[in-house]
């Protein structure tokens, strides 16, 4: 009879006995070298992107002058690029998901219900990753937990904490705030029929399309996010610049609209949140 555990343990013991590990100091040094290499690589890519952007300015200008097509499919949110790929080990995405998973342990069901990565988007402009994760409701319950976070390229992030959805009847909810020395964030959940979300501002700048994250069939709502900048002084004097949020369906009809400004404490909300 073959005892698999015993024989594997024999192999493992041999490796532990004969193996050479250079020690923790070497691992720390190697980690720092790796971080420097990555930083250098990112810097090179940024330089290349700036050069390529400068070279393509004329073409981009022509493109923006074309008439806008009807919103039968959601247009890509400017700047925000969805990252549908599975997090790779050691990647920023993987790190961010671990942090969100940790938050979701506070939800009902604890660690018995697995956290789902709903989606993530990368902002080239702000060099930030925004990610949303959720847990399906326990058996017999209708509410579910979700959380989100904004992370810089080193994995440091701001998390908004595990939340319990109070009501699924509201077609649009909104939360917002400012990450440490980062952009302003507006995020929330939106009815499934909405394929496009547009944010208008009070300070006269052009409206911005937000990124809608499709949560698939397992969750009853989708999620969205938008990042923008504004002088800190304007927030203190008049509230933040975001004003009206409008959700539109695939046929271009308005699903719902709500005011997310002007005054507030940094967490403006659409009705029903």
């Amino acid at each position, binding site marked *: 009879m073959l005892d698999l555990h015993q024989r594997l343990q024999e192999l493992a013991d041999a490796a532990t006995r004969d*193996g050479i590990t250079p020690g923790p100091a070497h691992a720390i040094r190697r980690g720092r070298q790796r971080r420097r290499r990555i930083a250098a690589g990112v810097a090179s890519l940024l330089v290349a992107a700036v050069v390529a952007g400068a070279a393509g300015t004329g073409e981009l200008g022509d493109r923006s002058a074309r008439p806008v097509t009807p919103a039968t499919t959601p247009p890509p949110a400017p700047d925000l690029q969805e990252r549908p790929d599975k997090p790779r080990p050691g990647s920023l995405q993987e790190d961010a998901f671990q942090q969100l998973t940790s938050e979701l342990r506070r939800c009902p069901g604890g660690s018995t219900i697995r956290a789902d990565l709903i989606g993530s988007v990368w902002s080239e402009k702000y060099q930030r990753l925004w990610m949303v994760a959720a847990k399906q409701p326990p058996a017999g319950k209708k509410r579910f937990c979700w959380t989100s976070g904004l992370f810089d390229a080193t994995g440091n992030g701001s998390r908004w904490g595990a939340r319990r959805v109070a009501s699924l009847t509201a077609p649009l909810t909104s939360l917002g705030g400012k990450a440490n020395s980062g952009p302003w964030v507006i995020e929330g959940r939106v009815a499934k029929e909405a394929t496009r979300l547009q944010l208008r501002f009070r300070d006269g700048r052009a409206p911005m399309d937000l990124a809608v994250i499709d949560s698939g069939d397992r969750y009853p709502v989708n999620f969205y996010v938008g990042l923008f900048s504004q002088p800190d002084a304007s927030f203190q004097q008049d509230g933040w610049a975001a004003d009206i949020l409008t959700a539109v369906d695939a046929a271009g009809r308005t699903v719902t609209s709500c005011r997310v400004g002007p005054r507030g404490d940094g967490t403006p909300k659409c009705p029903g949140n």
Partner: protein
Amino acid sequence: MADTEGFEEFYTATVGRLLGALFPVTGDLHEAEEVVQEAYARASTRWARLRDYDVPEAWVRRVAMNLAADRGRRLQRQARALLRAGPPAHVPPASVEAMALTEALRALPMHQRQAIVLHHLVDLPVEEVAATLGARAGTVKSWLARGRRTLAAQLGDPEEVRS
């Protein structure tokens, strides 16, 4: 240094165990050492957050397992060149039985090998093996069954592989 406070103790307490788990997966001790050290290097850069995890070792093990799979794929692509250069030197396993097991494990696809090691050596339940390897529990059960069958056949004990 604050960012690496506690890392040395963590490393010392877990590195042997992790090396032991990676050796049967890679089938080559030097390869296992390299993968394990790289995983700890990555952990050191995130240690300020990892040390708050319930089980930081699980994160390092997961990274090491994925690195082993990545390196395995790269090595497959380089197989012809390696064959020209002759077989790589490796530390002999502890016994003839252990050597046979190493060879039998090498014949398994990487995901089956990883599942076998995580379940039967590290003693993780199927659900945790699934989470570590990014697969569904049912898939892991299938990998385990196939892996055990192949091992039993390779090791000349076709009907009786005790888990």
